[in-house]
């Protein structure tokens, strides 16, 4: 048995594994002090303190937007914005979580709108009130240039707004801070959808494939495979021609099943 194997501790789910000598530090959850390990994320520290999350906890991996968190550290006036699942605690941090923030979403017919400044003005007229304070950008836990995309949308540069807002997890921190009361994340979603639908060229090669499927072109081929024995399937599987990693201009020899 190797040295490495003996040292391995089995991970049991999400229970924290604390390295030897881990220090506890005080944090203040909604003003109340708890001592938590200094290496933990805020999310796991809140659980360590004894809370069970109903709200403010989703994917636990920085992509769902359930755990936006606001904190200050004692002695420093700056406000900080983060995701609890992605941020390690700090000594003397005062934190609160924001599981929800009101933001009205404008309903629209995706088939009937277009990718224009007019669409934006009609659905989210408040964007024109942007005072360019950049507070939204400063509050974004995904480091998105929020004000830049709002300004792009305002100018009708929907493509830029879509691109810049792509990483948005819709946590709502931006909208919670905006003095102009803009509802950024809904606006961004609108931009991404109309950009993809009306500005990016559609996949022309997909249309004949969809038509072929709707005509039932593959029904019998698939029916044959469904009926094949494991032995036959193994043979077919091993005999598949594999498209190479660098595949420009590549064509399979067998084209009868295309």
């Amino acid at each position, binding site marked *: 048995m190797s040295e490495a194997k003996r040292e391995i*501790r089995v991970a049991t*789910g999400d229970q924290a594994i604390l390295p030897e000598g881990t220090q506890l530090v005080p944090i203040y959850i909604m003003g109340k002090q708890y001592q938590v390990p200094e290496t933990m994320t805020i999310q796991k520290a809140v659980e360590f303190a004894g809370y069970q999350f109903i709200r403010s906890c989703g994917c636990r991996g920085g992509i769902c937007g359930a755990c936006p968190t606001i904190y200050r550290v004692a002695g420093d006036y700056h406000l900080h914005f983060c995701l609890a699942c992605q941020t390690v605690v700090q000594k003397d941090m005062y934190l609160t979580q924001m599981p929800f923030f009101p933001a009205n979403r404008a309903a629209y017919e995706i088939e009937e709108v277009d990718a224009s400044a007019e669409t934006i003005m009609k659905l989210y007229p408040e964007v024109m009130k942007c005072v360019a304070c950049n507070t939204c950008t400063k509050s974004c836990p995904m480091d998105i240039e929020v004000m830049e995309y709002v300004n792009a949308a305002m100018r009708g540069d929907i493509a830029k707004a879509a691109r810049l807002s792509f990483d948005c997890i819709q946590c709502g921190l931006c909208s919670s801070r905006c003095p102009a009361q803009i509802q950024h994340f809904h606006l961004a979603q609108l931009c*991404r959808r109309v950009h993809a639908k009306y500005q990016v060229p559609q996949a022309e090669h997909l249309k004949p494939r969809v038509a072929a499927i709707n005509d039932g072109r593959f029904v019998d081929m698939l029916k044959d495979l469904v009926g094949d024995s494991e032995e036959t399937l193994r043979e077919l*599987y091993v005999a598949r021609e594999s498209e190479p990693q660098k595949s420009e201009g590549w064509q399979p020899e067998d084209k009868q099943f295309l």
Partner: protein
Amino acid sequence: MGYTPEMLDLIKKVEASRPERLERSKKGLDFEPLTLSGREEVLNKFHPDYKADGRRDVKVGPSKGENYPDRFADVLESKARLLVSGAELDKLTEYETDVLVIGGGGAGTAAALMAQEQGCKVILATKLRHGDANTVMAEGGIQGATQEVDSPYYHYLDVIGGGHFTNTPELVAALTNDAPLVIEWLERLGLMFDKDPDGRLRVRHGGGTCRKRMHSSGDMTGSAIMRVLRDESRNRSADINVLEFSSAVEILKDSQGRAAGALFYNMETEEYFVIKAKSTVMATGGYGRLHIQGFATTNHYGATADGLVMGYRAGVPLAFMHSTQYHPTGVAFPEQNIGLLITEKVRGLGANLLNIDAEQFVFEREPRDVESACIIRECMERGNGIVTATGRVGVWLDSPMIEVLEGPGAVKRELPAKHIQFMRYGIDISKVPMLVYPTLHYQNGGLTIADDSATNVPGLFAAGETTGGVHGENRLMGNSLLDITVFGRRAGTNAATYAKSYDGEVGDVNMDHVDAYHKEMAEAGVDTDRVAPLVLPNYTREEIMEKQLTTNYQGGLRA
């Protein structure tokens, strides 16, 4: 923060062997893939599914006698949260609808959209927020034979070969046939697919594919899909009523034994309420938060097998629940990100897997279970893993190679979310490799369905990770986002058809099947205080629970 000095020393070896590996990669010289028999050998010896301990035969229900991991058998051999009479259920009834969708992830939302398009009133109820689901965490892509050199035929072969020829054939046919339709549907709804300037969908290989058919939206494909589907459902809020923080705890049946809605628990007010429906779609996702075999998991907070428990008690047999997918590349460092997924796209883009001596030991595009087993072997049997200060072990995933193969800036462009996630801990994955180890990722099995998403219980449909058979004993990358959209759509459409042919309104509902299940447990000698569905995992420390002198836990929830 960032890597320790000891780890940085080991990374120097990775940097030293990189030029030669890049040369080989540019020439198309990959590490030799395993043969079919080679795959089987490494699986048998090293894959957690093949271990005999930590499992038992389940004693009750429609799949009685099947051998499951203990933690899953425990939730099947549990009591209901609540068992009440039909008269009580009548008093608790708050909503009536055509189609009830349980679960607010990608499958449930796709089902809701399709049922609405058929003219049905829909309620979508979910125990956390709409979109709190594994869907948002899927990074790598969605498969579909959209290219001219590919077809559903080859997609079928890849899926069934990847699943070790165990998959339910009709489900594979449905999956692969509908795949291009789903891609087209998503494009039409305004999903930002990665495309060439002329609109051609960009495609890549994934583990076990013979043609490039992995479509992506950055490295947030699942999140992008969820955002679009959710946004569209909100456009249709006149017909699709979304109830958040409403956890289904039991399927209800009518006097003819048809599924006729469900009993719910309001997570915040702790009230129970009933939704009556002419048909019901179960789309509750998987069981990663049961931490099968003690593994860390990539899954979201709510992945506690609730739908499996409810469906099983209602009489739906399970398929493939002996099989769990461990994603080969979960984060092993830093500890704060432990278990989180690193998309297969990293390997698709050309990053090597390396041991402590910076040597390759596995072909990077084996099917997931084989890749995982090879990493476990390298660490556990050969002792060639890198051990961290917190006692985790892993191997290197050499992401900086992508900067050379795809051009400078490629890591940030192709893997934006992952780049940010590691930068938070002072690790720039365009410059240094990541440390990875297999993590509990996906429930291969689930409720048994036919290719129209119907279960054996009339009026009950199911879609997505809560079902079993599509992927057999192993799922390929890019087929889960496909599964939830293909079968979500099928479930929604067929549940709507069922609802429309329902004679009159839903009458009295009952929990007789739950009562019968309790009796079966008693007869089988299962004497337990356990309660399921768990609803949430319980991460309370023992030191705290010891002092919670008046607190009860029902499943994972405090009550």
